């Protein structure tokens, strides 16, 4: 018999390696190939419209090179698409600069509407990770037709904002003005409320996510220089690089009174401390938020830490006569005020 265990082992690992190279999640060649085949003209046109819309808002000039750069596509493809779009009266070109026409702007808003609604849907109704919302919405925005979009919108209760705080255009293409300034532009001792966190580019968004910064949080800046922005929110200290802070939008508040200095996160509650629930952060959404409320985590409830568990996560909180276990990832979304006197009430 020509059977040799070493050869068998080697064969096995060779097959395994080939399999992994082809099929490993996302970066496997099979998936890459499959995705690249899906690119078609409609998608290119819609992506260009979106880019043009965003640039129009921030008063940026747009040319072919810029588009081929951000869309990671060949110049010739973009040129072809631009020609077709001009013929359809979606855009007009003057020299090297491309501008949206009214119909093009309407079209762009429709795409943005689908994108943001889909993100809202993912946030409210599914378990997908925040990091995945954007990519999934990028795919969906080219697929959903107007009718399906309106059904989706009404199922979600016609929301006004997507989970990042971006306004969702209405059916008729109206869109709320957001306002606010970037966090990086605030000065020392400024106070405000976070109203928006930009989800592009991905690398910066991931850094913001890793810090557990929440939309709706009240903040107070305590340091801002070319190296870092430091601020307090909900009893914790956050340090961001200025370019990261530039992706967070804050509505400034003039009146000291409006912000509650003693607000801390439930996750910071220690054994033998008692707190009173003040609110649940906007970052806790959909089913998860409703569940917390139903379990009695409502404004005014007294809460104390009962059990820390072998891993410190999840922990058991005593609330309204019973012990409820929550993961720390959920507890950071619950804002409380600690009672001044220690010891259980």
């Amino acid at each position, binding site marked *: 018999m020509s059977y040799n265990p070493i050869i068998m082992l080697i064969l096995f690992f060779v097959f395994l390696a080939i399999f992994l190279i082809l099929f490993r999640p996302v970066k496997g060649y099979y998936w890459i190939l499959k995705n690249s085949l899906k690119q078609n003209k409609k998608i290119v046109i819609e992506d260009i419209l979106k880019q043009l819309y965003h640039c129009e808002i921030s008063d940026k000039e747009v040319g072919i090179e810029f588009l081929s750069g951000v869309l990671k596509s060949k110049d010739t493809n973009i040129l072809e698409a631009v020609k077709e779009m001009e013929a359809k009266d979606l855009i007009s070109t003057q020299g090297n600069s491309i501008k949206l026409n009214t119909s093009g702007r309407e079209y762009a808003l429709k795409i943005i509407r689908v994108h943001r609604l889909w993100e809202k849907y993912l946030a409210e109704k599914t378990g997908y990770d925040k990091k995945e919302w954007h990519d999934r919405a990028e795919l969906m925005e080219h697929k959903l037709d107007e009718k399906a979009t309106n059904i989706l919108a*009404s*199922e*979600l*209760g016609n929301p006004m904002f997507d989970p990042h705080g971006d306004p969702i255009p209405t059916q008729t293409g109206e869109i709320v003005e957001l306002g606010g300034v970037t966090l990086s532009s605030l000065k020392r001792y400024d106070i405000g409320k976070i109203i928006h966190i930009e989800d592009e580019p991905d690398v910066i968004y991931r850094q913001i996510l890793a810090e557990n910064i929440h939309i709706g949080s009240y903040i107070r800046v305590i340091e801002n220089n070319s190296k870092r922005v430091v601020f307090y929110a909900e009893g914790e200290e956050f340090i961001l690089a200025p370019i990261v802070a530039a992706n967070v939008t804050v509505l400034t508040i003039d009146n000291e009174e409006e912000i509650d200095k003693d607000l801390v996160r439930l996750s910071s509650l220690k054994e033998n401390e008692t707190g009173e629930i003040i609110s649940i952060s906007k970052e806790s959404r959909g*089913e998860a938020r*409703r*569940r917390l*409320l*139903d*379990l*009695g985590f409502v404004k005014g409830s007294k809460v104390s830490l009962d059990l820390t568990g072998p891993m410190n996560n999840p922990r058991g909180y005593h609330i*309204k*006569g*019973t012990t409820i276990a929550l993961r720390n990832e959920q507890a950071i979304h619950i804002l409380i005020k600690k009672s001044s006197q220690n010891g259980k009430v």
Partner: protein
Amino acid sequence: MEKYSACDTCGHFNAQGLQKLGVKVEEVDYVIALAGNPNTGKSTVFNSLTGLRQHTGNWPGKTVIRAEGAYAYNDKKYKLIDLPGTYSLLSTSDDEEVARNFILFGKPDVTVVVVDASRLERNLNLVLQILEITDKAVLCLNLMDEAERNNISIDQRTLSRDLGIPVVATSARYNRGIPELIQTIEGVANGSIKCKAHHVINIPKNIKKATNNLVVELEKQFPKLPNKSWIALRLLQGDERIIKALESGELIVE
């Protein structure tokens, strides 16, 4: 413990009139729903009324399918539905939908809400929501033995007055208070006990206004619809099932 098991011997309860029918549920006179938070003893109450052995266990979330059973009392047959335990009726999870849909669309003659006497406040959240849907309800104050051990006493008369429905104290595990429960269910089912359920008072103004507007509209379009304010509230939350029900007309009572 005497005070709620006394009725075992009192004149009203007709012990001969009780017959546990198990799963024989054809041709019933009344349909009774058992609702309540998880782990309050619904299945235990269900078992002691029907003589069945629906699975019970000490932890939230073990009743995952709804069970049916029956009993007869004073020549009337009662069908009993053991609903999955829920903390609320406002959310969208599957078990809540089963419970909510049954109370709303199953049109039970009586809804028995089983609560944990030691954790009354937390349990009232669900009770008050159920009372928004239906008037014909009985509060089953279960786990009384535990409450007593924890030195908690409950003034049943005040509670009954505040909620506007009859209150029965039980310890289902030891079959205490079950005869009274059977009698009370009979009374509510045949109308000899009248309920006037409490409705939540301090709903914020903007919600109240919105529901009122919607109720006016519903009044115009569907004058025969019961529970209009609850339905208005569900519509405000975008409940697809309610929209479907409006369409099919299954909510209308003649």
